[in-house]
């Protein structure tokens, strides 16, 4: 799966995007987030305040209970500020 990070989240992870194999036991966004948090302090910091993180799977907003599959693109970003 492809993971993407935008705005200040990217500053924490240190990368804009990465390709990962769907980890064992990860079936939804919540499980993916727990797996990411365990990967390192940068990731842990991103998800310290869940309420400040938005999630999109394949270009659509989803909740933390949304399923994820190996072929998905999953993006994490802060509330948007365009316009």
């Amino acid at each position, binding site marked *: 799966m492809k993971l*993407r990070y*935008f*705005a*200040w989240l990217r500053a924490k992870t240190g990368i804009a995007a990465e390709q990962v194999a769907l980890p064992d036991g990860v079936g939804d966004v919540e499980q993916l987030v727990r797996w990411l948090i365990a990967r390192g302090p940068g990731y842990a910091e991103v998800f310290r305040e869940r309420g400040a993180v938005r999630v*999109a799977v394949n*270009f*659509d*907003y989803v909740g933390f209970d949304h399923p994820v599959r190996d072929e998905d693109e999953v*993006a994490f*970003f*802060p*509330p*948007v*500020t*365009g*316009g």
Partner: protein
Amino acid sequence: MAVRVQTEDFDVGAAIDAMTRGATGIGSLASFVGLMRDHAGGAAVSAMTLEHYPGMTEKMLGDIEAEARRRWPLIDCLIVHRYGRLAPGDRIVLVLTAAAHREPALAACQFLIDWLKTKAPFWKQEETAAGARWVEARAEDDAAADRWRRD
């Protein structure tokens, strides 16, 4: 679908002319232009960089436009949003709506900018004397977008 995401500036007059030329059923045209201000939160802002999520941006703007067309009898509609580095006074976003009468044109224009503000994946980073800072989302914007919710 008329949605453009670009680094280049846009010409409002030319966009209006293109939309109305030969379209004599249009009686009303509403527009909104967002521009970069030279100050924010009490601090002078010297420049701004707009980041976006290519792919999702176009999809969300298209979804928002389709929703506006479902809600109001629009004859035409255009959304242009820039990204990249901008200076104070630069145009950022254009929303243009055309209809036979003014009510749908004005309501759809307001709806489009309200929803765009809270749904289109853009993020602003401002440059001030104290350094760069990410612009924070405004609660007022969520409230403005919520006015249009239909549960």
